[in-house]
Each structure stands twice: as C-alpha cells, then as structure tokens.
C-alpha cells in the first residue's frame, strides 16, 4: 500500500466529514477545518511534490463544496502548506499535542490569506472585526482537532511504512 494512497483516502474522509457530520456539532456557523490539519501534517512530515498537489486538491475540494469563488481555498491551503514546509526546517514535532499550536498558527495564515484576497481583489465587505472572530474560532477548533488527527496520521504512516519495509525485506 502506498503512503500517498493513505493520504488521498484520509483527505477524502476528512472533506466528507466536514461537509456532513461536523455540521451536527453545536458550533453555530463554525465548522472544524480538518483538511487544514492534514495540510499542515503533509507540510511538516511528508513534504513532497505529491503533498503539494494534495494540499492544492484539498483546497479545491473545499472550494467545490463551499466557496462562491473557485481557487480561494486552493490558494489558502497552498500557502498553509508552504508555511508548514518552511517551518518544518526549524521545528520538529514529537508529540501530537504540539501540533495544536502549529495548526492554530497555520489556520491564521489561511484566514489571513482569505481575508487578504477578499479585500484586495474581490472588493467584498462584511469582514473587519467579524473576520477576526471567525479566524480565531476557526483556528481554535482546528487546533483542538489537530492532536487526534496527527496521532491517527502518524500511526497510519508508520503502519504503511512498516508494511512496505517488511515486504522489501521479504
């Protein structure tokens, strides 16, 4: 089993959860951004060209199901991946719990890029203080979900890698 297949499957499930079950949580208009957590994980632990494409596609999927403007989340996710990748040279996350602050900051990168594109290029109003509140709650929710998703991804990755290693030795 290839590692990339695992990430594709996880990405599919996370977007599926975001569009269905996550709306059952009593969070009002807020939806935990699970795709963002995967994007950060890829940037930190699996920085390959395939992961760049994966992050882009995660953003694309979110755009397809949510955004009135195609490409907004593609841009945001690509920036998040790039930030995570660049910071992976400086930080090393041993414990899944440490993923929470990283995801929190990455979510601000996403929120910031969305607000910047809205304001600079699409001339849309309705942001301001409300935008900051959305960015904060979005980041907080993603950070809360991050340790669990990181742990599952790490376990999945180790399982696939050990399978691959045992097949190679055999």
């Amino acid at each position: 089993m290839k590692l990339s297949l695992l990430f594709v499957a996880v990405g599919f499930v996370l977007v599926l959860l975001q569009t269905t079950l996550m709306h059952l949580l009593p969070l009002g208009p807020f939806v935990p951004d699970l795709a963002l957590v995967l994007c950060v994980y890829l940037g930190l632990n699996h920085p390959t060209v395939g992961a760049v494409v994966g992050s882009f596609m995660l953003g694309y999927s979110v755009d397809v199901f949510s955004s009135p403007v195609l490409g907004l989340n593609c841009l945001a996710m690509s920036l998040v991946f790039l930030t995570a990748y660049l910071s992976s040279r400086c930080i090393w996350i041993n414990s899944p719990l440490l993923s929470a602050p990283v995801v929190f900051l990455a979510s601000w990168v996403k929120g910031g890029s969305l607000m910047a594109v809205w304001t600079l290029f699409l001339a849309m109003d309705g942001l301001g203080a409300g935008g900051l509140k959305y960015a904060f709650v979005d980041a907080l929710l993603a950070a809360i979900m991050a340790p669990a998703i990181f742990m599952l991804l790490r376990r999945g990755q180790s399982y696939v890698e050990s399978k691959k290693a045992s097949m190679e030795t055999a």
Partner: protein
Amino acid sequence: MISFVRRNQVLLSAFLSILLSLYIIAPATKGQMRADPIGPLLIALMRPFQTGIQMTVGGIKDVYFNYAALRGLGVENEKLKARIRRLETEQNRLLEDEATNKRLRELMEFHAELPPGSVTASVTANSASTWFHSLLIDKGKSSGVEKGMAVVSHLGVVGQVVSVTGKNAKVLLVTDSHSGVDAIVQRSRARGIVAGSLENGPIMKYVKRSDDLQEGDRLVTSGVDGVFPKGLLVGSVSKVNKKSIGLFQHVEVALAVDPARLEEVLVLKGGAAKATE
C-alpha cells in the same frame, strides 16, 4: 539548473500551486468564473457517501428523539418493553412519514404560489468551511437548474445557485457574507440589501437614516434584483441602531429560514416574477 530544481522541487511546486490558484481566482475579480472540470467529478464521487451519511444521521436522530420522548410512558415488564420498542420503531417510521408529508405538503402549497416551473430539491451536503455558508442540492443542469436561480423554502428565502453540475447545484445561502437580497420593509416600504455578515449575523445594508424601521418589522423581497420574486418573506428586523453619524442605519435581521434545518428547497426557474401574496 536541474540539480537546483531537484533540490528545491517542493518549494517550486508550492509556488506553482500558489500561481495556479491565483490564475483560477483571477476571473472572479471581473465577476466571472473559470470553467471547473474537476468539481463535478468530486461532487459525483462524494455524493453517494454524503447522501448515505445524511440518511443515516437523519434516521438515528429520529429514533433517538422519538424514543427519548416516549420512554417515560411507564413500561413495567420486559415483554411490554419489547412490545413498546417495536411500536416505537413503527411509530418512528410513521412520525417520520408524517413529518415528511407535512413538509412536502407545505412545500407543494408554497410551490403553487410561485412562478411555474420550480424544482423541488433535497439538501445533500453542507459547506465544508466556516468562512462560507452554502449547501449542495441534488438537482442540477439535468433538472433545468441554472446558475443565478433563486432558492427558497416554504418559510422564505434561502439563497441563490452559484454553480451547477449535471446532477447537483451549489447554493450560496443568504447568511453568507458574499450574498445579497434586495428587500423592503413590509410596513414602511423602506428598502435595503439583506446580506450575511461575519460580525452579528445577517444585516440589512444601505437603509437610509430617515427610513422608518422598527424591531419586528417583516422584510420581504422587492423583486428588483431580478433573482427573487417580489413578496417572499426574508425575515424580520431584530435590532435597529441609528448611529450618530453616517448615511445609513445599522439593521440586524432574524432570517425566516434556519439553514441548519433545511432538508428540502425549491429552485425557482421563473426569475423574478411576483409571488402570490
């Protein structure tokens, strides 16, 4: 050169994906949209799973709520308990059928009041992001749904179709900060735009300071935006704040439709013809 590219391939591909994103966004600055070849495939791939999950969740919710409501009836022995459970299951099914019938009947009655050619659709998925308020419905081009069509329920205005595939359509809800519905106050005929906002929920923008508005005033569509027929209920005024300076009042709106509870909607094909009041 090749070794440089190989060494920095992740960085370069990330920059390329950023450029590609900007290339995709670019037409939106002119109010257009680039063709989306992958979106319909993604939707088609996810649709069965989303529908399955929605149905399962709906079933579980019904069973839970109905069981919770009925379990205090005082069942004394195991036989009776078992019998009651059987009856409850049956009742759940009947209640659900009744609720569905009621919803559909209301929708059909409302349907008759609208311009001819409206399409009934079910909600299959919700938005995947906090930043956007949208939903996906199970009717698309094959049912005659087109971009820009108005979406309503028997309670009032829901939103507008922003993209369509063969069998699905994405609806931007009135609660989204990018949406806007031209509305008038039913009592005073004051006019404004009802739009979503990230700050305090939906608001009515561009209402002149001199206009007469009171809390509880009903807001209906004006019909002049060319999307929604005139006279559809949008919501009611929940708060009015006349600031000391500025041209406009700050008006907060309680929408008639709660998007979280939507299961079926109507897509209006007839444009902005007048709805029967």
